[in-house]
């Protein structure tokens, strides 16, 4: 039963992170998740120290507010124009994280949040911490908080899909249509921040970042449509959650590292195999380049008038090898006829008519 709950928490966390991360990746601001995943730490510690009640939803909301504080600080520093945006993120999130680490080391939230969980969370213990309402055991608390985050993300995406899409791909158009992209963006980042806080306890900062970026980045290599990206990212995230959980269990180590690595492995596999990855695209590009060379040679020929190979090669300024390869390809494709004895080329009959 405990294993069922760990898996359930891992799966829901993976889904919530991957769905919210997809829009960050598409909007080309994936590293905002890295910033948020660190900046919420002081919020978690302070919110617990203030409420003292680990079941309080106020805790999650309060901590998520720190994420927004980071976003607003970064925007404020950028707006002054003294520091550019990537550097202002690089200044703000380590500072907030440092405050969080110092507060954690002071043990303000000792029983709720232990320093060991900052990086990789504590998925193994999460099922033991139950949510009890009206004297009834409703299952692990972590499961309910990540489920709330998942519902929030899905609700936001369903309600504001059009706005999110516009904002992601063309914020200026969105503004000119009267959509207030900055407000939608901020609201969306608040949802992302809430997701991160809810996932933090079980997943820790590294897994949150990995699950937000890697599945979406892998999905983008396979498909074009935003809906397809969301769906595929969800599938990849679930697969990494299951694989990582299994790996962690079999090696008896915390599953955060294995899950992050599985998500990374899926990305690397996509890089190799996907139509917009590295290997496949190269093959397509090579084929296109080869065809272009044949066309360039053919363009130097008039129908019915053979020309000497060497003079064509001279005009193109190609090496013997490059020219020979292009001619061989053209001859095998029956586009040109190569008269090896005379050393001439002419267009084949079919080509000339066409």
């Amino acid at each position, binding site marked *: 039963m405990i294993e069922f709950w760990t898996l359930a928490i891992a799966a829901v966390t993976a889904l919530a992170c991957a769905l919210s991360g997809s829009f960050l990746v598409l909007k*080309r601001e994936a590293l905002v998740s890295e910033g948020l995943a660190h900046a919420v730490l002081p919020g978690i510690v302070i919110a617990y120290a203030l409420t003292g009640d680990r079941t309080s939803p106020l805790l999650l909301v309060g901590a998520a507010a720190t994420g927004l504080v980071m976003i607003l600080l970064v925007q404020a520093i950028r707006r002054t124009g*003294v520091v550019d945006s990537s*550097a202002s*993120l690089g200044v703000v999130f*380590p500072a907030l994280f*440092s405050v969080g680490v110092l507060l954690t080391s002071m043990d303000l939230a000792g029983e709720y949040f232990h320093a060991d969980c900052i990086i990789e969370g504590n998925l193994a213990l999460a099922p033991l911490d139950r949510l009890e309402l009206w004297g009834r055991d409703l299952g692990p608390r972590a499961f309910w908080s990540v489920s709330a985050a998942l519902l929030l993300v899905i609700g936001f995406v369903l309600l504001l899909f059009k706005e999110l899409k516009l904002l992601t791909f063309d914020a200026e158009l969105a503004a000119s249509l009267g959509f207030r992209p900055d407000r939608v963006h901020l609201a969306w980042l608040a949802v992302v921040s809430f997701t991160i806080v809810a996932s933090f306890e079980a997943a820790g900062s590294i897994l949150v*970042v990995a699950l937000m970026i890697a599945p979406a980045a892998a999905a983008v290599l396979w498909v074009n449509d935003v809906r397809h990206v969301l769906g595929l990212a969800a599938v990849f995230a679930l697969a990494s959650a299951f694989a990582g959980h299994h790996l962690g269990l079999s090696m*008896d180590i915390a599953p955060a590292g294995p899950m992050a690595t599985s998500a990374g492995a899926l990305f690397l596999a996509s890089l190799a195999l996907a139509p917009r990855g590295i290997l496949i695209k190269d093959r397509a590009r090579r084929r296109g380049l080869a065809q272009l060379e044949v066309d360039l040679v053919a363009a130097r020929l008039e129908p019915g008038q053979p020309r000497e190979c060497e003079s064509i090669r001279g005009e193109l300024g190609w090496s013997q090898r490059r020219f020979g390869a292009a001619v061989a390809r053209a001859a095998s494709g029956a586009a040109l006829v190569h008269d090896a004895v005379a050393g001439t080329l002419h267009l084949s009959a079919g080509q000339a008519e066409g």
Partner: protein
Amino acid sequence: MSVPWVELDPTLVVVAAGTTAVGAVSGALGCFAYLRRQGLVGDVVSHSALLGVVGAFVIAYAVTGSASRSLTILVPGALITGTAALMLARSVSIRTRLNDDASLGVMLSIFFGGGLFLLRWVQRQSPPIAGHTGLEDYIFGMAAAMTRADLWMVLALGGGALTALLLMWKELKVFTFDPDFSRSLGLPSRLLDALMMALLVAGVVIGIQTVGVILMIALLVTPAAAARQWTSRLSTMSLLAAAFGALAGAGGALLSASEAGLPTGPVVVLLATAIFTGSILLAPRRGLIARARARRAMRDLPPSAAGGAS
């Protein structure tokens, strides 16, 4: 003859010298990353270094049979994985539709996740490998763990990086501000790019022991961002960033030594952040206070003078 250092704990002297050197070197090297808008690249390098640190530890243990956490073994590992992550990220963002942010984030996840994976695996080995406990400290940094040999390693690597920086100063400067112009001068841009990358990796790797892989980004970006407010000259900016970094490093080591249980890394980062905050507020001309004052002076001008331009 009373030398103030003598009264200090010799360990503390080593640690403080180490953090000061780290702060100075990464402050100076960070200026280039900052001006090329590659600050966050340092974050990926430092996170990725964890895999190299743990990997080097494991390999050294497998080869020699004895465990060592000496920086002379761990730093080369960190250099290798840091560079690998950077090159992979760059190749992904050049050759696919993913942008820098996404490809850097993915590489961070893979390398840091892998490093954590390997670290946990090492810790689970039985019989336990002696000395594996200290590896964990690379995540948040443990300045107190610095030995005399480690200090030499930091000084050698940092000194090497700074020497390379000084030797190639003019070329790197042109390349940073105007890559197209530097190409038209016939400067080898690939080589300069590689050198820049190597300097960035070196600047990050020397600090991971003291500040930790997670917070190292701050020592690279924050002093540079602070120094930028005071000057527009690259040489002054680098010197100032080095001074700010050294100040934060030394202050952090001394402060955290004075209070038990105060982790060095976060204290160093918060000192650097305080310097940054002071700089954006107080700097002449660019500072927020100076600008507010200039705006007010503008408003107070008589309308004829203020509207003279139109």
